[in-house]
């Protein structure tokens, strides 16, 4: 019984050659059907290689899938479900698979033994980067990655279940059946596109019928259960904390007529399971003998799979085995090491021609199956650093019940129970442990598995242990000779087990060779542990849909549409897109726009969307007390209808954030934070509320997005707003003084809030309406401002004006500056405690010499001041020892007609008038600057109180 549908042929290409396969084929089986033996080259020696396995353990048959200039490298031929139009090419060869010049390495192999590169290439020094390394790099690597973006789509998702069953062989299917019948929510996943596991490959009977019939009827029943989810082509690749598993579901590799993959190519699932049954089966091992890597030599079980499931006719072939599992092979000649015969050597560079036995007998054959016994697939039991234990009888590592992840049971071959009968028994028991009763198990094969511990054939020639990475038994012995005897040292020194199969076929053989060299037993020598993922997972799948523009959300302000319509350039501020300036026709560059916006605002009026500042509603009987704790200055005394600037410290005394806080009633404050810190401040406030002062009556809720808020700044701002604000509200200087706040209505009854705040230093207001009105309000404001030549201004002009005023912002509140550094020492209230007060008084933070924020102007007014320059005293050497501070913010002031800067200078508060060098190597701009007050414009604040 095979699973090939010869009525559905597929055309595909291998290295440009047109070939045909069928529905049901993998690429590997299709290549074998086309009698192709040579399919790849090894990593180091570029040895010719053929297909070695029939599943994900493959280490030789790695291919590139090509599609319209995009390459997916290193695909295992056995894991590609054949489809029409597949274009696949061999890799790591130059110029061709058949003639690979890099194969010269194979002849130089005596000099390329384990670790050779640590001992040479040291002279001359400069040659490493220039010559040796490029040579090594070009020779190494496997497939190519095209430099084109990956065009495919990926999804991610979350699944919840009572029982996750990993593997759909006899033990997994039986478990699903029992658990499913009892009503549990079951997920059963298998990396193969056909469920059934070994039952699809080994000819055997279950309850008198063929194993395949049992699989079909079981699958049919499982499909009928709504509580069972069958997930073929799904590799459960990792076990994480608390029952979380990572799984990759391959939806399709198929490319449609448009040259695309429809829908998501792969889905990365995070599976939350209450219980897990690991039924992942076992992987056959090779045997290390001289030249055991010829194309045509493969695992015996793989040959059986290709014959049975894929209907491949190998003709005559031989089997080398140390165990009873190969009894199922239909070979013409079995070489059983248990009878003291083995293979001494082989011939046939690009395809096996013959094998020579230890007796000297030479057997002509093109195909050889080898079986060195079986390794249970214990990988997922190790991901949380569980260690398997050695089973002497079965000569393999089995899961150790004492180190299993929580709520995981291991059954069947994965648990070292290799018969179908034992698989069923294991399933029954595992399900019973979960409270699922079951009837009698079907009758199945129970012939015991017997294995002789035969690992490698000693000799002078190379015998491969890790096929892909070209690690031979001699390499392992040499590593031991050089003192690399710990198994971890051997792995790192020889690269054993580091290939794309993560040592699935090589680790145990390698360990056995090492144990023999050390004269220890295998369990005393070490163990194999595995890290996720079980099989490699596309980075694209881990990224899911979050590439390109979808990397992070985009937050748009209420005036976004209006800004787009008016020439705005946007800047990323966290996830927000803020308008940085609004280009008008005729302007030559961003500076033109920014200068105009700043200048116009100071001359007449400008409008800026400040919605992105965090807004937090603070309500409660203890609101004042609470704010006194979180702000350095006092808020309990703030009068209703007033605002106050607030400086917030971290507990270590550094400035955390600043903003204003308005009081609307005895129990109601509205705090604003900087855009960048809105989230962290909220989190901090919740910490203070819940963890430090749990008995205060305080309630916090973010209203950042609830209110669209615009700054209206400039000498004409009041006049403009008077046209918008409903007449019953008085915003004259007398009735609504600087730092006032009130609830008002605008435009005929629309609810609003107005704050008399100024970041620009001009007469200014901030007006807020529910966001639903945000788009219309900005249009109304601009309409109302037409007579004043109102301008929108962006973050750049905002920055210019705040620097002109010497306000600290993000560049200064950089997490390493104290209130004192910022010139805000006076804000830390003397009488009360606040968060950060105690530690802000440490000796290193309060000396005369600490950094102080000051202003700078260029001595030559035509010089450009640059950000990030360091200050050096005139005449001092330009080195770290003489560094006096650094420039944090700079701007061209259209009002002053030259550049200005603010920065931190040691003891700067007492150094006004001093001349310094502002040293900027990376822009090659060293200029002379003078220390000045950071209040460049209207230092007495007359304008904002107007």
């Amino acid at each position, binding site marked *: 019984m095979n699973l090939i549908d010869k009525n559905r042929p597929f055309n595909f290409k291998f290295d440009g050659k047109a070939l045909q396969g069928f529905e049901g084929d993998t690429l590997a089986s299709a290549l074998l059907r086309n009698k192709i033996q040579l399919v790849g080259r090894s990593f180091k020696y570029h040895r010719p290689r053929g297909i070695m396995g029939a599943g994900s353990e493959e280490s030789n048959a790695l291919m590139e899938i090509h599609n319209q200039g995009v390459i997916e490298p290193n695909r295992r031929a056995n894991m590609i479900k054949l489809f029409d139009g597949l274009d696949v090419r061999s890799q790591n060869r130059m110029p061709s698979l058949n003639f690979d010049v890099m194969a010269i390495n194979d002849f130089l192999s005596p000099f390329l033994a384990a670790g050779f590169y640590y001992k040479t290439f040291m002279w001359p020094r400069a040659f490493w980067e220039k010559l040796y390394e490029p040579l090594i790099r070009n020779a190494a690597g*496997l497939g190519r990655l095209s430099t084109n973006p990956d065009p495919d789509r990926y999804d991610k998702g979350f699944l919840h279940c009572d029982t996750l069953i990993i593997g759909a062989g006899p033990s997994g299917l039986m478990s699903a059946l029992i658990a499913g019948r009892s009503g549990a929510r079951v997920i059963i996943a298998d990396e193969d596109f056909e469920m059934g596991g070994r039952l699809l490959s080994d000819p055997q009977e279950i309850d008198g019928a063929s194993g395949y019939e049992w699989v079909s009827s079981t699958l049919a029943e499982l499909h009928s259960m709504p509580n069972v989810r069958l997930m073929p082509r799904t590799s459960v690749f990792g076990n994480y904390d608390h029952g979380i598993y990572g799984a990759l579901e391959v939806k399709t590799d198929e490319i449609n007529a448009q040259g695309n993959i429809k829908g998501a190519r792969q889905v990365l699932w995070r599976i939350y399971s209450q219980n897990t049954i690991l039924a992942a089966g076992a992987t056959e091992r090779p045997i290390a003998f001289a030249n055991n890597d010829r194309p045509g030599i493969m695992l015996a079980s793989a040959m059986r799979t290709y014959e049975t499931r894929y209907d491949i006719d190998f003709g005559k072939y031989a089997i080398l085995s140390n165990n009873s599992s190969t009894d199922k092979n239909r070979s013409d000649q079995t070489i059983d090491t248990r009878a003291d015969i083995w293979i001494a050597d082989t011939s046939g560079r690009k395809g096996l021609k013959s094998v020579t036995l230890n007796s000297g007998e030479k057997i002509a054959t093109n195909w050889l199956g080898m079986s060195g016994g079986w390794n249970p697939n214990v990988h997922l039991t190790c991901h949380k650093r569980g260690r398997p234990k050695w089973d002497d009888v079965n000569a393999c590592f089995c899961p150790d019940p004492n180190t299993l992840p929580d709520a995981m049971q291991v059954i069947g071959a994965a648990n070292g129970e290799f018969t179908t009968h034992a698989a069923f028994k294991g399933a029954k028991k595992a399900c019973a442990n979960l409270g699922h009763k079951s009837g009698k198990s079907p009758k199945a094969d129970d012939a015991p598995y017997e294995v002789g511990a035969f690992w490698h054939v000693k000799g002078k020639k190379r015998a491969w242990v890790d096929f892909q990475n070209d690690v031979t038994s001699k390499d392992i012995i040499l590593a031991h000779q050089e003192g690399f005897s710990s198994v971890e040292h051997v792995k790192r020194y020889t690269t054993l087990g580091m290939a794309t199969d993560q040592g699935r076929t090589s680790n145990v053989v390698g360990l056995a060779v090492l144990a023999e060299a050390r004269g220890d037993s295998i369990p005393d020598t070490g163990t194999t542990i595995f890290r996720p993922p079980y099989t490699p997972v596309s980075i*694209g799948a881990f990224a899911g849909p979050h590439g390109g523009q979808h*990397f992070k959300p985009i937050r748009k302000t209420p005036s976004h549409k209006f800004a787009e319509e008016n020439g705005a350039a946007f800047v990323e501020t966290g996830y927000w897109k803020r308008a940085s300036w609004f280009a008008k026709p005729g302007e030559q560059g961003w500076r033109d726009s920014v200068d105009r916006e700043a200048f116009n605002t100071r001359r007449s009026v400008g409008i800026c969307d400040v919605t992105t500042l965090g807004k937090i509603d603070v309500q409660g009987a203890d609101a004042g007390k609470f704010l006194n704790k979180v702000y350095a200055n006092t808020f309990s005394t703030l009068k209703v209808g007033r605002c106050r600037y607030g400086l917030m410290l971290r507990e270590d005394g550094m400035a955390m954030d600043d903003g204003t806080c308005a009081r609307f009633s005895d129990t109601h404050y509205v705090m604003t934070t900087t855009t960048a810190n809105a989230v962290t401040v909220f989190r901090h406030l919740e910490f203070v509320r819940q963890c430090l002062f749990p008995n205060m009556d305080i309630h916090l809720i973010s209203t950042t997005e609830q209110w669209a808020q615009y700054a209206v700044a400039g000498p004409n701002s009041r006049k403009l707003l008077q046209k918008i604000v409903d007449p019953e509200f008085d915003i004259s200087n007398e009735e609504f003084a600087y730092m006032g706040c009130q609830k008002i209505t605008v435009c005929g009854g629309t609810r609003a809030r107005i704050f008399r705040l100024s970041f620009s230093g001009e007469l200014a207001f901030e007006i807020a309406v529910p966001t639903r009105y945000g788009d219309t309000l900005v249009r109304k404001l601009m309409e109302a401002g037409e007579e004043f030549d109102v301008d929108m201004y962006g973050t750049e002009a905002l920055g210019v004006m705040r620097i002109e005023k010497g306000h600290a912002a993000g560049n200064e509140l950089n997490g390493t500056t104290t209130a004192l550094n910022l010139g805000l020492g006076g804000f830390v209230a003397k009488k009360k405690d606040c968060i950060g007060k105690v530690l802000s008084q440490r000796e290193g933070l309060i000396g005369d010499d600490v950094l102080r924020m000051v202003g700078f102007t260029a001595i030559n007014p035509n010089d450009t001041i640059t950000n990030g320059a360091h200050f050096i005293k005139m005449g001092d050497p330009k*080195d770290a020892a003489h560094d006096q501070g650094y420039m944090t913010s700079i701007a061209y002031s259209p009002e002053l007609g030259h550049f200005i800067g603010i920065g931190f200078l040691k003891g700067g508060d007492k150094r006004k008038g001093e001349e310094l060098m502002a040293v900027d190597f990376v822009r090659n701009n060293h200029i002379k600057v003078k220390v000045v007050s950071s209040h460049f414009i209207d230092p007495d604040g007359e304008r904002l109180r107007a």
Partner: protein
Amino acid sequence: MRYSALKVLKEGLTGHKGWKPAWRKPDPKAAYDIIIVGGGGHGLAAAYYLAKKFDQKRIAVLEKGWIGGGNVGRNTTIVRSNYMLHENEGFYEFALKLWEKQEQDLNYNTMVSQRGILNLAHTDPQRHAFARRGNSMILNGADAVLLDTAGVRKICPFLNFDDARFPIRGGLWQKRGGTVRHDAVAWGYARAADMRGVDIIENCEVTGFDIKDGVCSGVQTSRGPIKAKKIGVSVAGSSSRVMAMAGMRLPIETHVLQAFVSEGLKPTIPGVVTYGAGHFYVSQSDKGGLVFGGDLDGYNSYAQRGNLPVVEDVCEGGVSLIPMIGKARLLRMWGGLMDMSMDGSPIIDKTHIDGLYFNGGWCYGGFKATPASGFAFAQLLATDVSHDTAKAYRMDRFSKGLMIDEKGQGGQPNLH
């Protein structure tokens, strides 16, 4: 035994019979002058410099497991000296200069490969911070170039310039940055130290300190007590556990940092690229694997393994920055224990206990520091005077308010 091309040739022709163990496997002696606790990169380097530069004799390195099994064998192999604060930059530049001579110094090819490191900026404030940082680097004798977008494109044309959520606005390029074959560093120092008489004792776990009247005179180990005049502890992620045996609490939390490697690929990525807007950095090893990582998982952990959210976060950053790597496959993920200090910078200092010295708090930056850390620790152990470039790495800097906080995150280790 000297390693050379000639020697490799000769051994190749004679069946490799002449290679000797890279280091001896001695039993511990009853007493040493100086004991280093911890056979990682830093500990082995300290032992080497003690013997080579500071003329110390009777030195032992005690390692709980096998040497190089901790972070020196688990990191993403990057070396660089691109710090902003002078207290760090001077030290890391000293390290980089030692890396540049390491192979000849040790007679071991650790594959120091200066293919450059590029830090990307995505906003003007980031570019400005890079300017400040680049200037700091140059003030400390390092190299730095501030790039605009075109400059970045020249070095890494494959980055996402056209469809990026966070557009690339420039970068800071240190040409002398690069990668080093991490395991080889441990082996190279071990071999060179061993050749100078240092006893490297594996499978020897320190279980206690002999402290009396404020003086430490030896250690208890799984292989018996060992006396010493001076004991230096250099155990990275295990710092708190080991120093607790001396009754000390440290300004350190242990966190897990995951790292990732892809399947082997032909050369694609030239140097090291660090994504300033995502949590992602990548280089390509000589074997062809993309070696990449991102942020800490973020919680205290000694488990040497992490969880899925960070894996996904890192890969999202990777694909959004370098769209072609979607088609590469992640081969292996693992975790290391980071001794995260309270300001993100290390400690190399005496303790209040005479004879007991501490080296730790390396956060995730320990690998690149290896030679300088070893050198500075050796000098401190040998002379009781801090190395010039490591003077700021004092234990008491937190009580004095002299933190060295590159990122400005304050006393929350998982944010550094």
